[in-house]
């Protein structure tokens, strides 16, 4: 939480000096993306279905023409229903239809480096996010749930492009691919590995 406090203080400070730097777009932007995520590794043993239920949103502040910092959150839900089967339990068996869900809500500090100047028609970038994620693991046996919630560290490198809608436009199209890792361990999951694709918009607002 200390780093979050620092981030907010930095943010306020940068807002104060924004007029000092002559930039093509205002430095503060918001972004919203739709996300599709594919589980990898042991997460695949729990649910191997691609998740089409996800989004992310963030705020970003441009420190100069190429470097920006920000904060980002979002949501991704993994879901898989397995036909009725018999599972061993301690001292017996259980016959059930299993519904496996994992809901992930990250809160990340981000840094982004744009590989071209802001007047380019296509602005490729690389980024890194790090922070914590709220994980809600819920495995249903029939209508009975076996649920675990908790927070875990999360890191996520990303590559992507921004395409302005016209030169100097404050509105940009965004497309990116990110890899997300979290040392999350619960039941059959030994860590959280996901490749995620995002498409959305970025709007410079202030």
């Amino acid at each position, binding site marked *: 939480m200390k780093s979050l406090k620092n981030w907010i203080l930095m943010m306020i400070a940068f807002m104060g000096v924004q007029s000092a730097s002559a930039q093509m777009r205002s430095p503060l932007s918001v972004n919203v993306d739709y996300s599709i995520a594919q589980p990898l590794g042991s997460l695949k043993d729990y649910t191997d279905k691609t998740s089409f239920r996800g989004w992310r949103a963030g705020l970003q502040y441009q420190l100069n023409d190429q470097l920006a910092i920000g904060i980002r*959150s979002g949501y991704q839900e993994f879901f898989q229903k397995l036909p009725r089967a*018999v599972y061993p339990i301690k*001292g017996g*068996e259980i*016959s059930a239809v299993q519904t496996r869900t994992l*809901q992930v*809500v990250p809160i990340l500090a981000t840094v982004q480096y744009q590989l071209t100047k802001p007047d380019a028609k296509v602005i490729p970038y690389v980024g890194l996010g790090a922070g914590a994620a709220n994980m809600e693991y819920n495995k249903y046996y029939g*209508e*009975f749930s076996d649920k675990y919630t908790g927070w875990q560290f999360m890191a996520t490198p990303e590559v992507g492009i921004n395409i302005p809608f016209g030169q100097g436009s404050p509105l940009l199209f965004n497309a990116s691919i990110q890899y997300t890792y979290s040392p999350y361990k619960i039941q059959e999951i030994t860590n959280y590995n996901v490749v995620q694709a995002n498409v959305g918009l970025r709007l410079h607002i202030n």
Partner: protein
Amino acid sequence: MYLMSASLILTASISSCSKDPLKNMTDEESRIYVTNRADSVDFTTYATFSIADSVAVISNTSNDRRELTDYDKKLIADVSAAMVAKGYKLIARTGKPDLAVNLTRIDNTYSSVYYDPGYWSGIGGYYDPFYWGYGGYGYYWPSYYQVYQKERAVSIDLIDLKNPKNNQLVAIWNAMLRGSGVWNINNVDSMVTAVFAQSTYLKTSN
């Protein structure tokens, strides 16, 4: 700062996007069939059984009683047939059977009071061990018996009549039918078939 608040509200509303696994779940999918066994018991050492002539109904809203509805008759017939198919011979209660089969419908729907099988044994209306020829005995419910709350369930218990311990009859196997529709006569066949099929150790030496 209003943007930060907006993003916080966005984050707070995240959970509303989740898919509820309990919606669109059929009654069949909602049900689970749990079987528990005493580890130390060799089920091939038993040859004969007898089954209760009615079903105990225990409830947290009305007095416990025995009933013989069409559902109960079907449950008695199906469980008897399943035991016979496993190789056990059905004999009269007075013929000193090795195993007793107790059947119980549990109705805990109207409160969330925890329910522990040990609690039934003291209740009039539940099978007094006298019914099995053991006047003055109690039942012993080993730790593998589980605790349920706030639902309707059906319990099938196998009681060892051959080896009473310290004036107690030991329950050596239990099947618990839980979920929606467990008290529906149309589901008795599939539920009883499932619990006996998944208990592969339940067989005679024949």
